[in-house]
């Protein structure tokens, strides 16, 4: 897997940051507690502590390189913990699912669209929480972690919090000890409430800065970018509180064109996943198991508001794929009976059709990397040919 990471960096790394990802570094708490201001605040503090001018594209780029490296480390740690817990009986299926998770996850933050994106920090924190939940160590740290993630980007509550909440809910349902039920119930409530409150604050009460702050932030954003540009929508929304749907008309059009084609081309995997999770769901017999299974299956529904209101379909598709792979691995690691049986039977099926499995994995590669506004390059290529845009 380390070898794959090294090759993937060589293959997919585009060595550039989109203005969206540099502009967010211009947001900081100097003017108030605004959303997405953590990294900008960190940069301001660091800049004030050194004699060197750190407010440059070069610094932001290097911070992003470090964050991406940390992300890879956490991915590997997560895989390590999963494989340690999965045991010998689930070893090969778990390894294969881990490999698929790595195939999808490693290239995600290497493209220009997503390199240095705040999502990488959210993923680091999500993986941190997943490791704690799988290893069942210091799980109380999940609460500050999810709060910190929501402060980094309030979109965390839609994109990444789902898997943490589902796992906490699962543990609450399956644990029989009263102390465990209280523990996981409390963790679930706090992990749900605190980020939600932060989301409500950031979404409705934090966009009250004026034109002067906007101009100041715009100037800083230009300094931090590769080519002197800045992401107007981000600043208009975060500083002035403007509704930017009018500025995203073209992006919504891309989404409408990309999504159906993607669903058609990705349908073999969707069909296989539906079969797999239906089989998993049918193996849950008791009320607690059925509720847990329902939560597991329905977790990505938190992304619906994003799909309806926002435009980063590439990120959302990645979020869904990551969710289902990670939750499957978690349940395998916990030796969940229904999941273990389902994985075992599907693994046997795949092992008996290795040629088809190899072709399917090769086919999966053609969708990588997932991007941001555009889902992936092959879909963009098809849409360009059909709609001549």
């Amino acid at each position: 897997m380390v070898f794959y990471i090294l090759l993937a960096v060589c293959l997919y790394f585009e060595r550039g940051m989109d203005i969206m990802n540099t502009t967010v570094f211009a947001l900081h708490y100097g003017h108030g507690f605004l959303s997405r201001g953590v990294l900008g605040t960190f940069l301001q503090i660091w800049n004030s502590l050194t004699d060197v001018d750190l407010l440059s594209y070069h610094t932001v780029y290097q911070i992003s390189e470090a964050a991406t490296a940390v992300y890879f480390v956490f991915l590997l740690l997560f895989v390590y913990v999963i494989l340690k817990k999965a045991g010998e009986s689930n070893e090969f299926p778990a390894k294969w699912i881990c490999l698929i998770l790595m195939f999808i996850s490693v290239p995600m933050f290497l493209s220009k669209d997503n390199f240095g994106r705040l999502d990488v920090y959210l993923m680091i924190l999500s993986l941190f929480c997943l490791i704690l939940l799988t290893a069942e160590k210091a799980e109380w740290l999940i609460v500050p972690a999810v709060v910190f993630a929501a402060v980094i980007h309030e979109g965390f509550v839609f994109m990444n919090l789902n898997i943490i909440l589902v796992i906490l809910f699962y543990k609450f349902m399956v644990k029989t000890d009263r102390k465990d039920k209280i523990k996981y119930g409390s963790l679930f409530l706090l992990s749900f409430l605190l980020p939600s409150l932060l989301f409500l604050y950031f979404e409705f009460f934090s966009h009250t800065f004026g034109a002067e702050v906007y101009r100041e932030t715009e100037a800083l954003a230009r300094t931090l970018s590769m080519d002197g540009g800045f992401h107007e929508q981000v600043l208009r929304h975060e500083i002035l509180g403007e509704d930017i749907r009018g500025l995203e008309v073209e992006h919504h059009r891309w989404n409408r064109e990309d999504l159906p084609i993607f669903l058609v081309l990705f349908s073999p995997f969707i069909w296989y996943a539906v079969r797999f999770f239906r089989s998993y769901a049918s193996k849950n017999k008791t009320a607690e198991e059925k509720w847990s299974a329902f939560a597991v299956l329905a977790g990505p529904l938190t992304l619906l508001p994003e799909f309806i209101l926002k435009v980063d379909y590439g990120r959302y598709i990645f979020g869904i794929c990551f969710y289902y792979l990670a939750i499957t691995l978690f349940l395998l690691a916990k030796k969940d009976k229904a999941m273990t049986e389902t994985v075992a039977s599907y693994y046997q099926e795949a092992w008996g059709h290795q040629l088809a499995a190899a072709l399917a994995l090769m086919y999966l590669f053609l969708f990588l990397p997932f991007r941001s506004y555009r889902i992936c390059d092959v879909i963009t290529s098809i849409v360009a040919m059909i709609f001549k845009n």
Partner: protein
Amino acid sequence: MDVKKGKTEKKDRLFLVALMAFCAVCVLYYFSHEMSQYSTTLYALSYRYGFISRGFIGTVWQWLDQILPFDLMNYYSIYHMNLLFTAILLLFFFGFYALCLRCIPEEQKSSAKYLILFFSVFSFPMFVTRQNLGRIDIFLIMITLLCLMLLISGKAEWLILPLCVLAMLIHQGFVFTNINIILTLLLYKAYSGKNKKRYLWIFAVTLLAVSALFLYFEFFSHHAGEAVYQEVAEEARALSQNGEYYEMLLKHELLGGDVYEDEAFWHLQNRVETPIFLLLFLPLLIPACCFIRAAWQKTEKEKRWLYLLLFAGAGTLLPEIILKVDYGRYVYAAVFYYMTLILALMCMGDRPIPQAVLQIKDRLKQKSHFSILLLLYPLLFMPLYDTEISKLTYQIMRLIGYRE
């Protein structure tokens, strides 16, 4: 028996349909939507200026321009026609695969399908990138595949001679890059079955004809003169996307200029990139060497000289590797040679090769649950380029500080 045969044919059709779907998405993934000025410049060469090398395609194109009611001498027409030619090339691949699956015995089909899948990873993206879209290699590959199909089916094999001559008219490099597989299989058929004289005759005449054409094109055809050069350069400008043409190509073909020094940069790049590529390609090279060893051990002693020729056939690429710079194309040519060789021998009822394939396949499966990743591994190297071997090795070169 019929029911079993029907089931097998259904599985084969399903495999090919799945492969076609993969091909379509693969092509769209790697498709660059543009042709390089190297590929467009070739269409400016024609026999109007004498019997020059690589003049055939341009001659046909310019003839079509005269007889058809629309203008073909522009980038738009060449680009769209080459999309069609590339689609035809891909159909040739599937025709070859279908024939192989029909001819290969039942018990070897599983191995053959793995080989076809492996081969397709290299072949599908090869001619859709900016570097290789519209490159006249596609005609050479089509002709080679056609010759292979004639050899496998044993029908109209006399067509091999005119087809190889046609290929030489298209590009004299055919003598190094693609004719090897045709000649080695002719020798194999001569010494393994019936009609030895017939195959030796086709082999000898084909070898003589292509060699004579190569010598003519290489040493006697580059004297068109400066006036012709300027005329062709103007036409090449009109055919390109950005009004530029590939100067080195015209300098060599029309004025007989030696481009070795002009290509010094790429020679250096090749020397840096090749070790990186070979190192990364080791996970595939090692099983390939084990396969050759296994096949060698299974070969009868009297036939070993023939199998030595078969395995060494890709050695015709050596002059290109030493003197020229398109290492991406040569890597593909080597993969093409060995994959088509193995598939063709399986079709022809060979014994050692299929046994060696099965042995390596079983050994890999036993050694590791993840041996199937060897089929996915080449995907990381795709696409193969021309002067650069692949996107991956080129990126690594940049990472280690080698800069253009």
